[in-house]
């Protein structure tokens, strides 16, 4: 009686050990297979190696200095051949006017290119400010994550770009961007957005919007350079990104951003 019970026990242990060994070998095999695939990139593409020698671009905008001239929005359209219709913008300026009754009036006539005419009389205004907007070049950009074909990506320099040859124009990224910084190019039928003037950066020229800003309200720079002007600016000012709650890793920092700004 007890004998048979013990043999039954041995058998049980034996079969479960075999099962354990089997699954251990499968797991190990799968892991090795995975790493092999990964290194040879047959099926899985390597995660981005962050190259420390390249800059990691960030942007700062000083709202206190912005005079709402729209030069940045105009220059952006000229430099990047953005369609002139008043609803395609890579870069635009909004005017926020908080009225004494608590309501907020937001205008952006042709993105600010045509100039701002104050439309709320002085006595009704609690406060008013300009808010220049452009791509935040997020480190964890939602637009990049939703792209089904890998046509939009974060370059090793931290610039979010669109591969126009690869984009299928599905508009997912336009929907996904919480800052409204993308549109579908009416002629090319592919996604279009701020590239931080990547073609200019490569020639050591400032992005067009920064070149023409008359008051130095906009700046770009290398966030890795701890002695650089951008990091210095961030150190000396109280800056904030738009919609920090969305955790997009936005790299466009505003000085003096008011809580009404969306």
């Amino acid at each position: 009686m007890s004998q048979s019970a013990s043999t039954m026990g041995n058998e049980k242990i034996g079969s479960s050990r075999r099962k354990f060994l089997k699954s251990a070998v499968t797991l190990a095999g799968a892991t090795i297979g995975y790493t092999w695939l990964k290194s040879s990139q047959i099926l899985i593409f390597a995660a981005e190696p962050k190259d420390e020698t390249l800059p990691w671009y960030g942007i700062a905008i000083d709202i206190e200095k912005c005079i709402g001239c729209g030069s940045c929005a105009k220059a952006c359209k000229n430099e990047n051949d953005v369609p002139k219709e008043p609803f395609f913008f890579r870069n635009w300026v909004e005017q926020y006017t908080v009225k004494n009754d608590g309501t907020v009036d937001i205008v952006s006539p042709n993105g600010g290119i045509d100039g701002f005419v104050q439309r709320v009389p002085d006595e009704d205004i609690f406060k008013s400010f300009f808010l220049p907007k452009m791509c935040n070049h997020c480190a964890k950009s939602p637009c990049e994550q939703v792209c089904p074909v890998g046509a939009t990506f974060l370059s090793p320099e931290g610039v979010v770009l669109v591969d126009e040859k690869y984009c299928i124009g599905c508009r997912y990224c336009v929907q996904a961007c919480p800052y409204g910084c993308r549109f579908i190019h009416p002629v090319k039928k592919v996604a279009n957005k701020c590239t931080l003037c990547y073609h200019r950066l490569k020639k050591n020229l400032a992005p067009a919007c920064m070149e023409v800003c008359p008051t130095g309200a906009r700046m770009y720079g290398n966030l890795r350079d701890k002695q650089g002007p951008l990091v210095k600016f961030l150190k000396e000012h109280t800056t904030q990104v738009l919609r920090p709650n969305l955790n997009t890793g936005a790299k466009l920092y505003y000085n003096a951003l008011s809580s009404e700004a969306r």
Partner: protein
Amino acid sequence: MKRYIPPQIPRLALAFAIVISLFLVLRHLLIPDTFGKYGPYRAASMDDYSTIEIHYAGQQACFECHQDIEDLKALDVHSGIHCETCHGPGQKHSTSAEAADILKPTGREFCGNCHMMNAARQKDAVLQVDLTKHNIGKNCTECHNPHQPWEMKK
């Protein structure tokens, strides 16, 4: 005990092997060379961007031929404003030196873009005038030199 393997298993395995290798070959042919070099995207598209032509030359380019104007500008309040902010893209003009390739802005609205009264404009960032009151009927440049605003023309 020899395990019985049904004949359809090896046949199926062969079919699978063919389909999978076909898939891998097709995939290899369809995916562009540089895809996956840095991440799940075509690395060569960054080179495509580098070949786009610039339209704004940067103000250093203007000094080569217009140092006189820069010397004027440097003395006065508009010193921080680059040439192309007012004159528009100048890459074409920088190589052709033709007057037709560059903008010569005129009109009260042009100066007004920056100087018109607006509650959002910070007074210490830029002085503002009421366009409907400040010397109406005259072009700003009849009195102010755009490159040296306080050097009034007679």
